[in-house]
């Protein structure tokens, strides 16, 4: 679908800060608050805006014990439905955070989160690799997140400019 420049601009802004005030959003664009509300509603209805999320650096939280793995999955596509059916069987598991169809040596990239390596390992061996269409899996555990969704986690770049300049 085609979006106009204002709709694109709203998307670009809220992609970086979905908590922005409607009032501020209106001030930053050529739209009124009422227009912004209509635009957001429209984009939500079209599922262009799918969900509003927060990027959290959980490693800073002592109470958090999660692990994340990226799993390369080779599958046999099925006549008529291709990869969609097996992708659906996989993405319905609540442990699965993301599923992407990939070009290259494997077919699906599956991101799985669990409370421990054991939990992820048993998900892979019991649930994922036992699916009929799955030929093989290769599991990579994430050791450290430096940058996620365009955000650098320990960014501390301060303003180095002099306070007043011509």
């Amino acid at each position, binding site marked *: 679908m085609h979006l106009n420049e204002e709709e694109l*601009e709203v998307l*670009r802004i809220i992609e970086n800060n979905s908590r922005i005030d409607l009032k501020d959003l209106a*001030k930053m664009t*050529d739209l009124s608050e009422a227009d912004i509300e209509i635009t957001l509603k429209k984009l939500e209805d079209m599922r262009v805006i799918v969900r509003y999320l927060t990027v959290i650096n959980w490693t800073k939280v002592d109470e958090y014990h999660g692990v994340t793995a990226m799993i390369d999955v080779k599958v046999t596509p099925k006549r008529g439905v291709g990869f969609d059916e097996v992708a659906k069987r996989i993405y319905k598991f609540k442990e699965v955070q993301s599923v992407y169809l990939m070009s290259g040596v494997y077919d699906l990239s599956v991101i799985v989160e669990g409370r421990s390596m054991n939990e992820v390992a048993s998900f892979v061996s019991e649930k994922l690799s036992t699916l009929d269409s799955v030929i093989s899996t290769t599991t990579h555990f994430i050791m450290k997140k430096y940058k996620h969704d365009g955000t650098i986690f320990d960014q501390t770049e301060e303003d*180095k*400019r002099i*306070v*007043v300049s*011509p």
Partner: protein
Amino acid sequence: MIKTSYVSRTIAELKPSGIRRFFDMAANLEGVVSLGVGEPDFVTSWAIREAAINSLEEGYTSYTANAGLYELRSEISGYMEKQFHVSYSPEDQIIVTVGASQALDIALRSILNPGEEVIVVEPCFVAYAPLVTMAGGIPVTVQTSKDDDFKLTPGQLEAAITPKTKAVLICSPNNPTGTQLGQEELVMLADIIKKHDLLVISDEIYAELAYDETFTSFAAIEGMHERTIVINGFSKSFAMTGWRLGFVCAPKEISEAMLKLHQYAMMCAPTVAQHAALEALKHGMQDVEEMRRSYRRRRNYIVKSFNEMGLECHNPGGAFYAFPSIEKTGMTSLEFAEKLLKEELVAVVPGDVFGESGEGHIRCSYASSMEQLQEALKRMERFMKKHCK
């Protein structure tokens, strides 16, 4: 014994920049939110920085040709053609300089005979008039008015021309007003300039930061290419102020004169910065687009906020400055800026440092993060409530 001064009279008589004084005041205070910065808040993109690092690793540490790396001039030539539809030969019409400042300096020095006049359109960048003086010329200032959105009118230009006038120095989009001249306005000015056989020094350093109308280069106006010296650079468009890299495009005769000055006084622009600039032109245009969008949002935000709090502000078409009127507070620009700094710790630049007609205004740079802008605006609103009944 009374010692005579060692300093040249010309330099001794130059007024120090009014910005300096403000810098000293603001730099000594804690917790200042500054809208006084005349440079992008972005750090140069990593791709450009990485290209510079790589050039050092590769050992590119010697001089380049006086006019700059041929490859860079060639890219600049392509860039000028593509962005602004003006053509300059990399062979003999483009010089890579140490910032747009040096470009201005050699432009003025290469055209001025002692006593010739240059029309300087105020409010403007603080260095213009001193540079004219240092080049042996006489700056003749023209005061644009808020009522014309700080645009030079044909009548004003005509009135300022004398038999001694050599050139008109003009900056669009403008620092400090943000005013951008449209194509039609340029055509009207060009007619007068051609009639009087004058040159134009067109400072187009903010050309990439035009938010509403497409930017038109003075050199793109019919009959102006042969009488325009275009000043541009990488500082504002690619957030590369500290690299000190600009360039100047001009007709061959003037270019050759400028190159003489440049080769004797500067040799060449820094090699590492030239390699960075090459990367900027080759792969950096997407970043320029993103930065432009980001400034535009903040422009919209700050201008609406100023008008809401009673600081009347015209909508600046480009650059990253808002130039609201503070007349209704009854204060001078300097009083306003000093009080605002003392009471609310917000640094802005009093408009009069950019010329007489800047009095009654303050320059507020919106090249700051949204958080900083919002904080500054909150403090300014409180200030306005207190001082404006």
